[in-house]
């Protein structure tokens, strides 16, 4: 898919203004300074900063403003906030157990941030902050460090029992330990790339279909295709937030109860 579009893009540049595809599917992921200029420093406000701020404001609006009245019969906003709270609370309780509920605020924060950022990224012309590995890697590394430190603090050296599969035959255990160790350190990589890759791939596909709409013969199919993919992306935006959160719960459970 990317190969084809890049070639079209290059061909467009060669043929000049009369060409059809006027945008590149990956252009939407470019980080630009918000107030003009080219250089992006450590403190430059960029479009990422802007949309991250929008995300945080949206979460505050959803969770704080709608529930401030504390109506006994909840309105629409309060219903959504209560449903989200109950959903994550049940997830943490089911996967991690009662003693994992202590870490519920952190997991709720993660879930709300990712799901709202994913949904806001679906607004046309918006920037999808979670499509950047820089954003998701910070989230995943935070989870990884938290869980690892927590495991050692709670269990001491017994946490290493996570890598020593005591139910396996003794001869196999060193080999399994190496595999478990590798898979443990791959966790933050797959954790972050799964979210970023899904969001990036989905949004790129939407833009590729939108590019087909410029060929008038297949324009109706392309518009229907964009609509269908958009619906799929709504589903993916929620499922990826759910998957990220539930994997966090699984890792947390491993840290709290490291025995196989």
């Amino acid at each position, binding site marked *: *898919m*990317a*190969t084809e579009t*890049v*070639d079209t893009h*290059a061909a467009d540049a060669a043929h000049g203004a009369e060409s059809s595809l006027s945008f590149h599917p*990956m252009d939407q992921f470019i980080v630009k300074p918000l107030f003009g200029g080219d250089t992006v420093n450590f403190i430059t406000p960029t479009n990422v900063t802007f949309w991250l701020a929008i995300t945080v404001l949206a979460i505050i609006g959803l969770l704080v403003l709608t529930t401030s009245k504390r109506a006994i019969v909840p309105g629409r906003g309060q219903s959504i906030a209560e449903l989200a709270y109950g959903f994550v609370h049940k*997830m943490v309780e*089911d*996967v991690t157990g009662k003693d994992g509920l202590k870490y519920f605020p952190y997991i709720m924060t993660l879930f709300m941030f990712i799901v709202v950022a994913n949904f806001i990224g679906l607004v046309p012309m918006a920037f999808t902050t979670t499509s950047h590995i820089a954003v998701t890697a910070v989230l995943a590394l935070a989870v990884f460090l938290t869980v690892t430190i927590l495991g050692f603090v709670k269990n001491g050296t017994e946490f290493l029992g996570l890598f020593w599969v005591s139910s396996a035959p003794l001869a196999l255990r060193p080999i399994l330990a190496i595999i478990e160790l590798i898979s443990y350190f791959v966790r933050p990589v*797959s954790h972050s*790339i*799964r979210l970023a*890759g*899904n969001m*990036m*791939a989905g949004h790129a596909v939407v833009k590729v279909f939108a590019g087909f709409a410029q060929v008038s013969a297949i324009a109706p199919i392309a518009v229907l295709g964009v609509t269908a993919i958009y619906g799929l992306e709504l589903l993916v935006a929620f*499922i990826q937030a*759910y*998957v990220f959160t*539930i*994997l966090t719960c*699984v890792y947390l459970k491993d840290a709290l109860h490291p025995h196989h």
Partner: protein
Amino acid sequence: MEGDLAHIGAGLAAIGSGAAAIGVGNVAGNFLSGALRNPSAAAGQTATLFIGIAFAEALGIFAFLVALLLMFAV
């Protein structure tokens, strides 16, 4: 036709997406056949279903990442 070996490699990496599709289909299909045998136990296992799908899908995403790296970073 323009391009170099990196583009061919990116195309080959896209095969990985198909492999991930097989994996995800396996997980979901087996979940469905199990759920139809015992529907009352199915609701409690949806979390496991999504974890399984996520693990299968992650490797497809790795293939996609390799394709992206070949396209834009090499």
